[in-house]
């Protein structure tokens, strides 16, 4: 690390009190992990408006979120989640000015396109599940708002399973936040959906 005579007394004291091997190892490993994370963020930024390559976008986002969940890095998770929220906000903004994006981007993500909405919804459901696994409740709530927005744009008949999962997750979030009234309401909605589907099966 230092040539003989180069280090000051303070630096020598610091080296003596910290684990030098650990420090050297960290210096080797950290750039590679940073590159791994940054590359996926670049992919997300580059593909955020392309409806044809949304599967690659979703794969990249899920890879990042699963990495953060596996290695318990909450700060990084929140950064990635913020990026995903921003990208969704851009899509919402673009939906308000359809003529503007139609001229510039060849295959934009449109909220009127059912396939695109379905893929957006899949991604956000995965994001919510990862946030719940990480116990990041406020971020989970934010994601659930996006999911609710997307659910309202889908046909009511083919979203029963999505609604079941959604109300299950909402019940958990409200329980954690101490909103017992909303928790009960979410469970009541869940019960209603389960009962309806059971009645249909019995018929």
């Amino acid at each position: 690390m230092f040539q003989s005579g180069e280090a000051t007394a303070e630096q020598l004291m610091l080296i003596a009190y910290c684990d030098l091997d650990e420090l050297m190892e960290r210096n080797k490993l950290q750039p590679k992990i940073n590159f791994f994370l940054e590359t996926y963020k670049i992919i997300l930024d580059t593909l955020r408006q392309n409806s044809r390559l949304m599967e690659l976008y979703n794969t990249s986002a899920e890879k990042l979120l699963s990495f953060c969940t596996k290695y318990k890095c909450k700060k990084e998770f929140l950064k990635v989640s913020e990026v995903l929220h921003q990208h969704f906000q851009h899509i919402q903004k673009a939906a308000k000015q359809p003529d503007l994006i139609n001229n510039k981007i060849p295959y934009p993500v449109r909220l009127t396109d059912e396939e695109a909405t379905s893929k957006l919804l899949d991604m956000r459901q995965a994001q919510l599940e990862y946030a719940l696994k990480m116990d990041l409740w406020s971020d989970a709530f934010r994601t659930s708002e996006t999911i609710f927005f997307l659910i309202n744009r889908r046909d009511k008949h083919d979203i029963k399973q999505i609604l079941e999962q959604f109300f299950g997750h909402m019940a958990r979030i409200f329980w954690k936040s101490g909103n017992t009234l909303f928790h009960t309401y979410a469970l009541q909605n869940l019960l209603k959906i389960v009962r309806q589907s059971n009645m249909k099966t019995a018929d």
Partner: protein
Amino acid sequence: MTPESALKTADQHCNDGLWQQALTTLHQALGNRRNKGNNAMMERLMVALIDICVKNNNTVALRENLQNFRNLFQHASMPLLESVFKYLIKENNKILAEIEKKEGSERITLLMSDDTTNSV
């Protein structure tokens, strides 16, 4: 400079350890309007650039060139764009797989986890 000679020059620069120059050569070849129609060659140039960026952990050049490449080919050839991004994802996953194999999951958790208290 033709794309073939750009690839050769970049390769030579890499062998001499001058990877910044190699990146500049590839960047210029990718930006050359004469090469725009040659999809196969553009893919080779981009793959070579990704390889150099992955080897040297360079995200700045990667971001700039990927965005330029997207702007060029999102109108012309979506399959080409898809194959380049798939290649990048594959190479990126290899990095993590290698680290996990070499260092083990516990070591990465120790480095990345917010719960870990660092001595320095």
